[in-house]
């Protein structure tokens, strides 16, 4: 169980902007909780600096209001968050008291929960959002307070919102802000479990969607039978394919929201007007042109394989090379010993022996009783990188029926089409220089590890679209969707596009007489990587040369049919409008051009949108340039117009924003 308490600063020093930022962060946080941990988390919201004092401890801690008690995250909570406003009558913010109230509320909630279930594991977290324009009272007592709070095992996350600009100078922080930052820094040193995050950095992690955490549930418990030997094992799923989230249907016709049920009816194929009662049907099989009728249930039963028992039996061992990697059928199981303490690690020894002899086991697997068919599985030794213990992996193998029955001609048979030496050399270099190294931190583009942070982009996009539906004005959606786009853009492409855009930018800046160095100063985060960047630049140049070589050496000519087949229209097409529109059905004789017009609701990202996003990312200042006014779609006299002129194709320019 995870409990969260959000503290929102709405006191005299809070600004509209700081509140907006707070709302966005909370919105995304709650959104993620609803999607992934709805049943395992509860959230409460406390406002600090209100005129009222609505909290159970109001006597000692005034001007703190609990607007939402700790409850399961829901759709209403998001609208509650959106309804938070800055009142006209506000009071001074007392951050420390609000922390104390929030902790007390969390503890109360925990106690209530524990009365129902004693051994409940509760994780408590407090998020404090402040712009730091109010001083912390009694900074000398922070260590004493911290000692008190430490008892309760609460995690504190302080999020420092963007600074309020001091008049005259955009980039300096106010004196109070500096003081608060210092005090909070001190406070975190006293606290056991706490962190200070600046808004931009915090958003980077908050905006990363993950996916549901899954329960570990064993799929089989029993003996691994090797001859008469039975080693007790437990099987867990290691990898399996996941589907798009399930959805329900609703009617587009009726004005009120009504769910739609699908009903089945049965008709004669020869005369669809005659409906058949489902109970008047009998089963049959198609046999070529004829139909085999099975009126008797027993006859049908004869077609089935019966009497299968649960088993995990080794048929034999075979050379590793006999298993063809691309013949494996998806999914993989992990086999662990039932109790690692007993049996002197029989499973581990067996796995190690298999590894040493380079063999793989072939097994007959029936995980549940009365399954239709036993499955043929492999059994491979696997050394767990964390615990260094030997276990087994298992996955399905195909039967003869699953293998295609045809032979392919060798593509190398046409001798005239084989590559020459220089062509091979270019490919050789290409493979070398475009290696993906998961450990290479210097090159952010060229490390990709599917086990780390590569989530299904389609599902992620879906989740972000939901967020967009909740509040179309949220500015961070673009960033989320950009992150998704980054995942599915090849590093080669990223690099090429970034080089192009760099050149363009430089050209533009030169034209406008602005020196490039000023731009560079603004990079806060990447200062440390300057040396690496230089190295990278050289590497990137080498790569560009290889690409040129490739183009020169391989004479690739497109045929017209192929061009027609590709449809760039589907690239990155994201629906922009949220209104409900019933799509028209395509007519056969319609002009293809008209077709395109119909699809217009799916606007591509226009170039202006892209520039906007790009700007947001470029500005690594604490100051946020997210304001709409600054980057509205005004087409006159902005950089964007000049840039878009340089690009022939809108689609290509998409990749500009990836740096």
């Amino acid at each position, binding site marked *: 169980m995870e409990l969260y308490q959000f503290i929102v600063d709405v006191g005299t020093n809070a600004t509209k902007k700081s509140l907006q930022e707070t709302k966005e962060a909370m919105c995304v946080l709650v959104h993620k909780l609803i999607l992934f941990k709805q049943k395992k988390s509860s959230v409460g919201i406390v406002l600090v600096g209100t005129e009222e004092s609505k909290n159970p401890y109001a006597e000692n801690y005034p001007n703190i209001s609990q607007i939402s008690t700790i409850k399961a995250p*829901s759709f209403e909570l998001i609208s509650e968050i959106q309804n938070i406003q800055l009142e006209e009558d506000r009071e001074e913010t007392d951050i420390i008291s609000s922390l104390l109230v929030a902790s007390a509320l969390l503890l109360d909630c925990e106690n209530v929960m524990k009365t129902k279930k004693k051994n409940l594991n509760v994780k408590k977290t407090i998020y404090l959002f402040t712009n730091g324009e109010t001083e912390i009272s009694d900074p000398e007592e922070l260590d004493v307070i911290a000692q008190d709070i430490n008892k309760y095992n609460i995690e504190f996350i302080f999020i420092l919102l963007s600074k309020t600009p001091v008049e005259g100078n955009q980039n300096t922080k106010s004196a109070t802000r500096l003081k608060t930052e210092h005090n909070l820094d001190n406070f975190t040193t006293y606290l056991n479990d706490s962190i200070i995050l600046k808004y931009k950095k915090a958003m980077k992690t908050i905006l990363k969607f993950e*996916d549901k955490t899954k329960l570990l549930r064993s799929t089989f418990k029993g003996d691994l039978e*090797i*001859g*008469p*030997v039975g080693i007790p094992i437990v099987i*867990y799923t*290691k990898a399996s*394919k*996941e*589907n*798009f989230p399930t*959805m*329900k249907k*609703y*009617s587009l*016709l009726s004005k009120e929201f009504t769910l739609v*049920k699908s009903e*089945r009816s049965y008709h*004669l194929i*020869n005369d669809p007007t005659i409906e058949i009662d489902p109970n008047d049907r*009998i*089963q049959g099989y198609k*046999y*070529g042109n004829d*139909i*085999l009728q*099975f*009126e008797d249930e027993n006859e049908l039963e004869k*077609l*089935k394989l019966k009497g299968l028992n649960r088993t995990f039996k080794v048929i*034999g061992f*075979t050379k590793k090379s*006999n298993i*063809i990697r*691309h*013949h494996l059928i*998806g*999914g993989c199981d992990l086999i662990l*010993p039932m109790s690692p303490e007993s049996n*002197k*690690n029989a499973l581990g020894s067996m796995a190690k022996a298999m590894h040493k002899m380079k063999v793989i086991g072939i097994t007959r697997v029936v995980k549940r009783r009365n399954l*239709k068919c036993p499955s043929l599985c492999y059994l491979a030794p696997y050394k767990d990188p964390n615990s260094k213990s030997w276990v087994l*992996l298992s996955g399905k193998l195909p*039967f003869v*029926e699953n293998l295609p029955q*045809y032979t*392919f001609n060798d593509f190398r*048979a046409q001798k005239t089409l084989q*590559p020459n030496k220089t062509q091979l050399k270019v490919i*050789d270099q290409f*493979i070398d220089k*475009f290696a993906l190294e998961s450990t290479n931190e210097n090159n952010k583009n060229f490390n990709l590890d599917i086990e780390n942070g590569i989530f299904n982009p389609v599902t992620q996009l879906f989740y972000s679209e939901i967020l967009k539906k909740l509040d179309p004005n949220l500015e961070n959606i673009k960033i989320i969707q950009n992150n998704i786009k980054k995942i*599915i853009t090849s*590093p080669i*492409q990223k690099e090429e596009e970034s080089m192009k855009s760099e050149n363009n930018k430089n050209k533009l800046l030169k034209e406008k007489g602005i020196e490039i160095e000023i731009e560079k100063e603004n990079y806060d985060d990447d200062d440390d990587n300057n040396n690496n960047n230089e190295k990278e630049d050289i590497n990137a140049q080498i790569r560009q040369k290889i690409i040129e070589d490739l183009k020169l050496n*391989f004479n690739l000519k497109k*045929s017209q049919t*192929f061009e027609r087949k590709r449809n760039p229209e589907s690239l990155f097409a994201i629906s922009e409008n949220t209104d409900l529109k*019933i799509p028209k059905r395509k007519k056969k004789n319609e002009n293809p051009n008209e077709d395109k017009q119909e699809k217009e609701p799916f606007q591509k990202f226009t170039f202006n949108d892209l520039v906007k996003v790009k700007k947001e990312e470029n500005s690594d200042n604490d100051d946020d340039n997210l304001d709409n006014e600054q980057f509205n779609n005004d087409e006159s006299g902005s950089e964007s117009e000049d840039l878009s002129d340089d690009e022939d194709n809108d689609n290509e320019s998409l990749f500009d924003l990836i740096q």
Partner: protein
Amino acid sequence: MNEFQNEEETISTLSSLDSVIFLIDSRSSMFQPNEYYQTAFENSLKAARLVMSEKIVQGGSDQFSICFFGTNESKNPHNFPSIYIHQELDVPGIDDIQKLNDIQTDIDQNFISNIGHSTNDQLDFSQIFFTCSTIFNKNTVASKNIFGNRIFIFTCDDDPLKKDEKLLKKSVDKCKELTDVGIEIELFAFSGLEGNFDHNAFYEKIISQKEEETENQWREHFSEIEMTEIDNFNILLSKVRKRENKKATLGTIHLQLTPDIEIAVKVYSSIEHDKKAKQIYLDSKTKQEVETRTKFVEQLDYTEQLDGKKVVLRETQVGQCFEYGGSYILFNPHEISSIKRYGPLGLQIFGFKPLESLKLYHNVGFSNYLLPNENFLKGSTTLYSALYQKMIEKKVYAIALFKLRKNFGLRFVALVAKEEILDEESEQVSPAGIFVIKLPFTNEIRNIPIKKNVEKIDEQIVEVSKSIIKNMNFHFESTSFENPELQKLYHGLHQKAMKINLNQDLIQDVIFPDWEGLEKADDLFKEFVDLTGVSYQTEENRKRNREQQMQKKNTNKRFYKTERLENLKSQDRKNKDLIKLYTLKELKEFLKSVEVKFKSAERKMSLVEKVLEYFSNLETNNLNEQQNNN
């Protein structure tokens, strides 16, 4: 939605429809028994029949025709001599298979006396080809769904024209006409009495009438047959099978190395789904096929107010919504499909990784096979080949983003180059080329905490394990095992169709270890058990234990069942909700016990109705009886 979930299924149903004419030589030379006492004619017929019936039980809808040439009788639309169309081009049915079976079981009676051999040894192949094209043409009028038309020639005569130049020219011209419309001709040659089959004599002239581009490939393929004269039936069967199954590509996509450099590749599936005959429903009265239709109905609370009329919607009038924190988020159909279509089509290479980093569990879904498509993009083969060679040489694989069709999901894949794999009979198990292995996303891999073992691995146990492994070693191939479930279904359907009673035990689940071999290694197993303390049970023990457990469970269950059934009988008999609580099986059992008739596909609600009806009948009967008594 459905499109997305059934990604794999849609692939399998896309395989193309084929039509094949089996052109079987029926002159007397085909009836000479070989060393296995089989005649070439019998073998060809048997192969044709088996391939046809196999296709049927696998649910294929390919069309077949059987045509004999060199016959005494003739039956064809043009009244050409010596050409006998035995079976018109159509999806075969029970009768067709039965007829072929009849001919094969008694060739003398059913073939020689009815159809007979032609006395003239010289054949006019142009007439034969003309007949074939008529057979195909007739069909294309009826249905347009035909992709591949092929002619399989079975013969043992290498020179049927007897060196007649005129006939040769005519035949070659006619053959060119056929190949121009995309009809393929395949030859299955038997070595005749005079020894080897000479392809140069006649057939090479027909079969090499191919487009120039593929000539090289074709020649190689041609020589393959040349090397092995088909005498053994099994070899013939497997050859016919391999030719019969046409390679169906899933489509051509582009493989992108960089944004500007791309090649065209054809995608094939390297694993297929289980193929089964289609299960259907029939109307019990008319015995006609029934189709299922789905309609969308609004779930209204006030349906009754609308005179019980349901609001039926069209598919375009239905949107999708997502249950979200106690509320629904609405999407219109366009939005959902645009989300699902997200991402670029084709294959984009991201970079290369060493092969060791590709773990065994990095595998979801079925893998695909890529071949260059030179027709779409000139130069594809060269780059593909270079990539293949270098990837094997450097032991790397490429990570790429894969999207086969617009409405298919995105997936990261590993492109792995593999050399050709042949089995013991040097038949291809897996071709050379680049394979697409689908990788899981981070959320699809689970992090399972593995406890560190308290005890270190004892080398002595490892040694014993090694000798156990040595004892249980066997040669495994991907083609080693048949799917017992499918085989049982195939045989069952075949039996039902042919109305024969084969022994059902013929089809057995054979996925078991070699018991005899295990007995030899018994000492090793005992040693392993002694060292580790795991359980030792012979297979009989296991069986007995299992049976005992089952009995226990069953007795419990039976007791439970009878108790429930008794309860059902003494239930408040008008309470529908209570009867609903019983399972379908229990209701069926109950209805059987009280001798009420019901149908196999009957649904639970109707069974509940029947139970209710039975009780109400019972009550009225009781009342009547009471009245009578009174």
